[in-house]
C-alpha cells in the first residue's frame, strides 16, 4: 500500500473512532451533542503534551482517553439539567469554552499549538497497524456495547427516558456513562490524530469539526453502527474522491448533506433497514 493510501486509511480509522464515540452518545443514548470535537481536542492535547514530555504511546493514549472522559463526565453532569435543543446548545458552548481556554493558554501552545511529536518507536507502518487494530477493537467494543445490557439500557433512555426509569434503568447514570465512554473514544481518536499530524493546533477542534462529526453520525442513521462507519468513510474520502470537482467540492458536500437528510431522513442506516425489509418481504 502506498503512503497515500495508508494516510487516508488511518484518517478514516481516526474518524471512525471519533464518530463511534458520538454515535454512542447521540445515536445509542439519544443525547445530541454539538461539542464533540472538544473532547477530540482534549485527547489530542493530552497526548501531545505527554508525548513531548517523552512518554510512550502506551501511556499517552490511555491518558488521553482518561482526560477526555473526565471532561465528558463534567459536561455530562451539566447536560443532565437540560434537554434536547438546550442540550445541543449547552454542548456547543462547552466546545467554544474548550477552544477559548486552549487558545489563551500558552502552556498548551496557545494559537501556535504544539508540534514536533515524534513518531512512535515502531515507525509509521507500525503506527498505522496499531491504529487500525485499535479501530477494529473500538468497532468490536461498540458492537458489544450495543448487544450488551448497557446498549439495551441506552436505547431505552434514548427512546423514552421516563419509561426507562420505570423499568429500573437509571437514566442519569446511563447518560453519564454514554458521555464518558463516547468522550473517551473521542479522546482516543484525538490521541491518534496528534501522532498522525505530529502536532496539534486549536482550530482543528472547533465548531466546524463538531458539526462534521455529527454529520457522520446522523448521515449514518442514528441507530446503525454499520451506517455510522460507512458514512464516516464516505465523508472522509469525499475530499479525495472529489478532487476533480475542485472548486465545487464543499458545495457538493453541503448538497449531499442536505439532500440525504431531506430525502432520506433515517440516514444510511434507514436505507439498510429498507433493503432488509424488501429482501424479507417476499419470503
Amino acid at each position, binding site marked *: 500500500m502506498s503512503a497515500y493510501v495508508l494516510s487516508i486509511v488511518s484518517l478514516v480509522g481516526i474518524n471512525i473512532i471519533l464518530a463511534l464515540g458520538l454515535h454512542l452518545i447521540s445515536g445509542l443514548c439519544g443525547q445530541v451533542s454539538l461539542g464533540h470535537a472538544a473532547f477530540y481536542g482534549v485527547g489530542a492535547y493530552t497526548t501531545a503534551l505527554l508525548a513531548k514530555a517523552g512518554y510512550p504511546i502506551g501511556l499517552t493514549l490511555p491518558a488521553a482517553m482518561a482526560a477526555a472522559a473526565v471532561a465528558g463526565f463534567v459536561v455530562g453532569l451539566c447536560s443532565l439539567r437540560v434537554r434536547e435543543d438546550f442540550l445541543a446548545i449547552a454542548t456547543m458552548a462547552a466546545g467554544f469554552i474548550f477552544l477559548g481556554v486552549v487558545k489563551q493558554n500558552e502552556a498548551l501552545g496557545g494559537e501556535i499549538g504544539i508540534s514536533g511529536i515524534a513518531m512512535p518507536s515502531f515507525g509509521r507502518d507500525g503506527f498505522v497497524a496499531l491504529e487500525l487494530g485499535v479501530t477494529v477493537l473500538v468497532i468490536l467494543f461498540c458492537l458489544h456495547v450495543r448487544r*450488551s445490557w448497557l446498549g439495551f439500557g441506552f436505547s431505552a433512555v434514548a427512546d*423514552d427516558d421516563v419509561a426507562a426509569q420505570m*423499568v429500573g434503568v437509571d437514566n442519569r447514570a446511563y447518560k453519564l456513562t454514554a458521555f464518558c465512554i463516547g468522550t473517551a473514544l473521542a479522546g482516543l481518536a484525538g490521541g491518534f490524530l496528534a501522532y498522525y499530524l505530529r502536532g496539534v493546533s486549536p482550530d482543528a477542534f472547533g465548531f466546524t469539526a463538531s458539526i462534521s462529526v455529527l454529520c457522520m453520525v446522523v448521515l449514518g442513521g442514528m441507530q446503525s453502527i454499520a451506517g455510522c462507519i460507512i458514512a464516516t468513510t464516505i465523508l472522509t474520502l469525499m475530499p479525495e474522491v472529489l478532487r476533480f470537482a475542485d472548486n465545487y467540492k464543499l458545495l457538493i458536500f453541503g448538497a449531499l448533506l442536505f439532500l440525504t437528510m431531506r430525502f432520506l431522513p433515517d440516514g444510511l442506516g434507514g436505507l439498510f433497514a429498507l433493503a432488509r425489509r424488501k429482501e424479507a418481504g417476499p419470503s
Partner: protein
Amino acid sequence: MMDPKQPRPALEVRDIAVQFGGIRAIDHVSFAVGKGDLVGLIGPNGAGKTTMLRVVSGQVRPQVGQVLLDGRDMRGFRVAQRARTGLGMSNQIVRPFRHLTLLDNVALAAGHDRTSSPWVAIGSVSRKRQRAAAMELLALVGIASVAHADPRSQPLGVLKRLEVARALAMKPVVLLLDEPLAGLNQAEAGKLADTILELNASGVTIVLIEHNLAEAQRICRRFLVLDNGRKIADGPVAAVMADDAVITAYLGEGWRNATR
C-alpha cells in the same frame, strides 16, 4: 385500612400533600395497601389520582409526607430506584420503547438486575433468560403471539397489556396500573380486567387507577376515592359506591333530586 392479617403493608402513603403553584393537587392523603390486595384508586377527572401515582412513583416530589414501599421509606429514591425496589408501574398513555420488539420491551424490565448499573450492564450480553421470562409474561397477559412485533404496529389493546407485562417483569411488590383499560373496547377491557384479576389471585398486590368503574367494581376488593385532592372514601367496593359523597363527586351536586 390495613388488613390485620398482614403485618406490614406493601405500600403505605403517609400524609402526602402536593401543591402546584397555587393549586393544591393533593391535600394530606394517607392510605395503606396490604400485601395481596387489589385496590381501585378512583375519583372524577382532576381529583389528583394521577398526581398521587406520580408521587408514589417518584416523578413528583411532595411538599409533605412519605411513601413507604414494603416498609422502606422511599424518600430520596428516584424513579428507577423505586422501580428496582419493587414498584411496578404502567402508564396511562402507553409508553412502549418504540425501537424494541414487544418481547424486548418486557425483557429489558425482566433484566432489571442486569441494568442496575452501567458497570453490570456492560458485562453481560445474553438476554436468553430474560427473554424466556418475558415470553412467559407476554403469554400471561395474552399477547405472546405478537412478541416479535414492532410496538408501533400494534393496537392499543396490545400495548396496554404490554405495559402491564413490563411492569410485572420488575417482579414488583406493588403494581401500579394507571388506567390500563382506558381506550379499550368493552370486550378488550373485560379481558384485560380478567387478566388483572388473575394476576392478583397469583399474589401480586395491585393498585389500579381506573375510570371504567364497571370493570373496576367487578375486580377490585377495595376502593379508595379521591376528590379535589382529598380522600373522600376508603373501603369495600359496595360500601364506597353507595356513599353519597362519592356519587356527588361523580355526578355533581343535586344528583339525588335529579334521579328521583
